[in-house]
């Protein structure tokens, strides 16, 4: 059984000019010990999906359809009091900017013990021991001394390690990492990615790695889901998606990444831009930018279709004959 199993969820924002569907009919699941990369442009809906799982959608946004199962338990519409007990305990969240994720007025030790004591019954001393163990685990040198330090006394990379320690406080089974490396230097990025990989391998944590950086995905993820304009475009094993992308959008995305040794005069790019949520075209959202667009693409949204035997699926009419996901 997958740790997290999202099926057919839609997220909508009612506005006075009509309802905006930010995420539509999206399904994905993550197994224990697996890292699923979720890629897409900003505004594609990848962060919203992460927020929806932990029940932190900004009002008026809300889940209007579909189910979210955590270890088989339906958590789609849990009341806030129940959801609060899951956040931080079963699901750890890591945000983009480590510089702003920590409360500047409290020591990191205090923030760690507060989180532990919120979810676990233990003494303050036990919580402190656990916090120091966590700091050690995420690679903070001399954790006993650093326990009483304030966030501003850490570098960006170290702060992101503290953030990860906070997310790991109560041994969660799922980690949602929302652009965890975007705000960091390249060398620090690699360290954080390694840390996330190790945690997932050693502790069997399922990880949802939200990013727009294909390099990070290639480095860390086992599988990858590509989201375009709120819909799943393609999902599959990371190597097959990168080496043999099936959806025209994914293909365009891969072509636009420069490769070492490649000798190009111009970098290929995809003509046009992702449509705004309130101006999404009929049919496949990508059709105005797609060179192989057919008439059905302009009329009907394509279902996810299995494109090979290795569990790769693409929402593209080009594979019409294959198995359809329901």
């Amino acid at each position, binding site marked *: 059984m997958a740790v997290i199993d999202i099926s057919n969820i839609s997220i909508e924002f009612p506005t006075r000019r009509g309802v905006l569907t930010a995420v539509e009919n999206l399904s994905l699941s993550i197994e224990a010990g697996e890292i699923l990369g979720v890629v897409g442009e900003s505004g594609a809906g990848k962060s919203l999906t992460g927020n929806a799982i*932990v029940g*932190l959608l900004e009002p008026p946004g809300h889940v209007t359809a579909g189910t979210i199962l955590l270890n088989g338990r339906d958590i789609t519409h849990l009341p806030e009091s129940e959801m*609060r*007990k*899951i*956040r*931080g*305990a079963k699901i*750890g*969240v890591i*945000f983009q*900017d480590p510089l*702003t*994720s*920590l*409360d*500047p*007025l*409290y020591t990191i030790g205090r923030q760690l013990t*507060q*989180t532990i004591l*919120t*979810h676990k019954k233990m003494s303050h001393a036990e919580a402190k021991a656990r916090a120091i163990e966590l700091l050690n685990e995420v690679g903070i040198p001399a954790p006993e001394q650093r326990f009483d330090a*304030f966030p*501003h*006394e850490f570098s960006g990379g170290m702060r992101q390690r503290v*953030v990860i320690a*906070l*997310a790991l*406080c109560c041994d969660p089974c799922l980690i949602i990492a929302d652009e965890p490396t975007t705000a960091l230097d390249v060398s620090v990025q690699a360290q954080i990615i390694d840390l996330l990989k190790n945690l997932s391998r050693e502790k069997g944590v399922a990880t949802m790695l939200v990013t727009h950086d294909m390099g990070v995905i290639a480095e860390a993820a086992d599988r990858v889901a590509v989201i375009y304009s709120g819909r799943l475009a393609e999902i599959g094993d990371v190597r097959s998606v990168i080496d043999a992308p099936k959806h025209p959008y994914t293909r365009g995305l891969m072509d636009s990444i420069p490769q070492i040794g490649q000798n190009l005069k111009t970098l290929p790019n995809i003509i046009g831009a992702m449509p705004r949520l309130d101006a999404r075209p009929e049919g496949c959202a990508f059709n105005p930018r797609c060179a192989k667009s057919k008439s059905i693409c302009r009329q009907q949204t394509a279902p996810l279709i299995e494109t090979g035997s290795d569990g790769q699926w693409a929402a593209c009419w080009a594979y019409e004959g294959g198995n359809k996901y329901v």
Partner: protein
Amino acid sequence: MANFILYRLFQSAIVMLIVALISFFLFNFVGDPISNMVGQETTVKDMDELRQRLGLNDPVIVQFGRFIVDALQGDFGISYRLQRPVEELIAERMPATLELVFVSAIIAIGLGVAGGLFTGLKRSHWFSKFILTTSLVGISLPTFIIGILLIYIFAVKLNWLPSFGRGEVVDLKGGWSTGLLTVSGWKAIILPSITLALYQTTLILRIIRSELLEVMRTDFIKFARARGLKSRDINYGHALKNTLVPVITVTGLQIGSLIAFSIVTETVFQWPGMGALFIQAVQFADVPVMSAYLILVALFFVVINLIVDLLYFVVDPRLRAEIKN
């Protein structure tokens, strides 16, 4: 830490010196104090004598030096209008003003913080909307109108509370007269202190609310929620504590303003304080009283600013680190 305090004290001393200079120059070289002091039948000889006695014929530097030395000793000269030492007049009236400001400050901080927290944390509650609407009406009501209204309702119509004065006062050691030890004194201070506090209450309420709304949007609050912390811990531990720096600043300034705004309240309620003394001084161009009052108000502000600085220090570890280096 000690360096920081010394540095701040040095800064405050400079501010005070500038204020002293301004008040000295403005009031010693604007207009002729002598002609404002004396009746029409005074002879030129009498006027010259008075001029000599007040030291108005000395060189400017000497006058300013004397002004500073005297002021440091608490000597602010003789009131033109009342012909009495200014420090005596002020000492008589200071307790009334400070007691009024003190009670008002407690009301303003108490109501302002409570209202700000409620409206900031429960944005869509009907009572929040009610408080906000009332607070807008509150800042649209000039202080003197609130005073008149309260007098009309509680003194004229209901006859519950006195409309003017301090009630019965008790003289304490050191020349301090207090109204806070008698029932009639407490009755007398209710209306003026509410009047004085109302405007500052709305300002404190609004700043706390808007700061809270701002902090609630920050990443660390989002992250705190994502860690499943209890909303009580998030609201009062993380959010409120992070609003404290701006809130302390504004609250400090507002309490400083109370002493200036007490001019209006004291006039409406015929409260025998420094504000009423100042207004009479303005109307009669009583220069020594005006300049002493200006210096006193500046001193009050400087002291409050010092306290505010020290409070920052307690609240924010980043400032502590900055000062260490």
